C-alpha cells in the first residue's frame, strides 16, 4: 500500500479546483470481518483456503457434528465450528463460527517464539510464519490464546493461516472472503470493518421482529484487538462459539521468561565462568600438599 501511494495523483492539467482525494490516507491496518449471524455453514471458505494454499484434502474424524474436523490443522487453516445451541426459549439454533488465526495486535505466538525471524507481524496487522526460520520448538503453539498454530510432524515446522498475505500484498482479498456466497465475510481496512461490524451489531440489537439485545463485536482488547472481527449474536458468551475466549491472555510467564529470566539467567551463568577464570588468575591452583617450597611470596 505504501508503494501504491507513490502513484497518487498530485496535480491534473487543465483541471478546475483541487485534485480530488488529494492527501487522503487510507488506513494501513486491514481486517477480516466475520458476521456469524449470516453464516450458513456451507464451508466454501474452507475449500477456498485449501485450494489457494494448495493443501491436499486431509483425513478427518467423524465426531457426530457437521464440523469437518475437530480443530484446525497444519494443512487446514480455516474451519467452521458448529455448535448446536439451545436458546432460553427452548428453540435450537446453530452457532457457526469460522475459526482461523485471529492475527492479534499483540500476538502470543510472536511473544513466545525464540527463533530469529520465524514469526513476523506486518504493519497491516497480518501475523505470518516464516517456516525457513522455524526450529519447530512449538513455543508458539502454547503461546497462542486461540490454539491456532499447528505442528507438522513431517517437516517439523509450525503452520497457520497467513490471512493470504500473498494475495493481500497484491491488492486482493483473502481466498475465504472471495468464496463466501452469503456476504457474511468482509475484508477491508480495520477502521472500515470495525464501523461495518458496529452497524451490523446495532441492526441486530434493534431488529423489530427478532431483536438480539446482546449482539456485539468481538475485538478483544486484552491482546490489543485482533485483525479478525466477529459479529456475535451474544457478545457476553463468546465461549459458545466453539470456545472463543472472552478474555484471551498471553501468560505472564512469557514476559517473565523472555525479558527477565533469559537475559539475566544467561549472564549469571556466564559470570561463573568468568569467576572461576579469575579465581585461577588471582589465586592459582590448590596443589596436593606438601607442594614444592615457595621461594618467596609475591604480592
Amino acid at each position, binding site marked *: 500500500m505504501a508503494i501504491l501511494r507513490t502513484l497518487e495523483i498530485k496535480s491534473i492539467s487543465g483541471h478546475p479546483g483541487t485534485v480530488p482525494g488529494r492527501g487522503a490516507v487510507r488506513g494501513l491496518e486491514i481486517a477480516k470481518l466475520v458476521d456469524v449471524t449470516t453464516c450458513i455453514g456451507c464451508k466454501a471458505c474452507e475449500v477456498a483456503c485449501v485450494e489457494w494454499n494448495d493443501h491436499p484434502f486431509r483425513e478427518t474424524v467423524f465426531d457426530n457434528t457437521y464440523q469437518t474436523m475437530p480443530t484446525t490443522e497444519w494443512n487446514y487453516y480455516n474451519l467452521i465450528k458448529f455448535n448446536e445451541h439451545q436458546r432460553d426459549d427452548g428453540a435450537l439454533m446453530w452457532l457457526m463460527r469460522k475459526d482461523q488465526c485471529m492475527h492479534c495486535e499483540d500476538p502470543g505466538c510472536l511473544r*513466545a517464539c*525464540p*527463533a*530469529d525471524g520465524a514469526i513476523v507481524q506486518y504493519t497491516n496487522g497480518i501475523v505470518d510464519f516464516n517456516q525457513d526460520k*522455524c*526450529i*519447530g*520448538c*512449538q*513455543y508458539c*503453539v*502454547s*503461546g497462542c490464546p486461540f*490454539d491456532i498454530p499447528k505442528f507438522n510432524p513431517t*517437516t*517439523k*515446522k509450525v503452520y497457520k493461516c497467513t490471512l493470504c498475505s500473498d494475495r493481500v500484498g497484491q491488492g486482493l482479498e483473502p481466498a475465504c472472503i472471495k468464496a463466501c456466497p452469503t456476504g457474511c465475510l468482509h475484508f477491508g481496512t480495520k477502521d472500515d470493518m470495525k464501523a461495518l461490524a458496529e452497524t451490523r451489531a446495532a441492526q441486530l440489537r434493534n431488529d423489530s421482529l427478532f431483536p438480539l439485545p446482546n449482539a456485539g463485536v468481538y475485538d478483544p482488547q486484552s491482546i490489543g484487538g485482533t485483525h479478525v472481527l466477529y459479529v456475535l449474536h451474544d457478545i457476553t458468551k463468546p465461549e459458545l462459539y466453539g470456545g472463543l475466549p472472552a478474555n484471551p491472555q498471553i*501468560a505472564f*510467564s*512469557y514476559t*517473565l*521468561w523472555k525479558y527477565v*529470566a*533469559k537475559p539475566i*539467567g*544467561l549472564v*549469571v*551463568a556466564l*559470570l*561463573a*565462568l568468568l*569467576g*572461576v*577464570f579469575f*579465581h*585461577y588468575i588471582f*589465586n*592459582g*591452583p*590448590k*596443589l*596436593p*600438599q*606438601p*607442594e*614444592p*617450597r615457595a621461594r618467596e611470596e609475591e604480592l
Partner: protein
Amino acid sequence: MTTSVERFDEKARREFGKLGHTTVHEGELLRHPVYTRFLHWTVAIFFFLGLLSGLAIYSPWLFNWLTPLFGGGPMARLLHPWFGLMFVIAYLLQFLNWLSLMRWTRGDKEWMRHLKDYVKGEQKLEPEYVGFFNGGQKLQFWEIIVGAGVLLISGLCMWLPELFGRLAVAIGYVLHDISALIMLFGIWIHIYLSTVGQPGTLQSMTRGVVTRSWAWTHHPAWYRERTGRDPREDYQRAVEGQAGRRRAAEARQSDASAAEPESEQLPKNAPVTSDK
C-alpha cells in the same frame, strides 16, 4: 528399599568391574571404580548434548550456530528431550550409587561456614573432618538432583503439551530455563576445580586413582578411613622427607660443584613423591 538399592548397586559395580579395571600404583589410592566413572561420563556426555542442543532452542539468535551439530534447528529440538531423558536416567543411577556418600553431616555444615576460606585458598590443607566428598560437592550433587527433577517435570510438560495444557507449558519454560542455567553456573565451578583448579583431581575420574598426598590434602577424613593412617601425621612426615631430601640434594650439589660442575642435573624443585 534401601537394601534392594544397595544390592543393585553392588551388582552393577561388580559387573562393571569385570568389564574394566583400575590399576592402583604405589603411592596411590582407588577413588572411583569403573561403574562410577562410566556413570559420570555418561551423565557428562548427555549433559553437554542437552546443553548444546538446549542453548540452540533457548536463544537461536545467539546460539543458532550450534544447531548444525544436531542437523539443524528442528532436529536439535527433536533430539533435545531424548538427551535430557538419558541425562536424567544416568544421573538417577549415579544418585543411587552415591547416595550413601552424599549424606549431609555436621561436618558439611561446618565446611559451608568456612566456604570463604576455601574460595580464598589460604588454608593449604582441608579441615580434618572432610570425608569422601566435601560440603560443596554434596551441595552441587543435591542441587542437580533437585534441578534434574525440575527439568524432568517441566520438560515433560513441554514435550507433551496436549497432556499437560497451556499453563503448565508456559510455566515450564521459565522453570526449565532457570534450572538449566543454575546447572550451567555450577558446571563451570565443577570443571574448574576438577581440572586446573586442583591438579591431580581429574585422574580420579579417568584412571580412577588419586595420589596419597592429594587424598590427605583434600579429603583427610577419607584418607584416614581408607588407609587407617593419620592424614596430618603423614603430611608432616612428607614435609620432613621433602626437607631432608632438599638438604641432601644441596649437600650433594655443593660437594659436586666443588669437584665437578657437570652433575647439576637434579632440579631444585623435584616433584614430591610420597613415602608410601
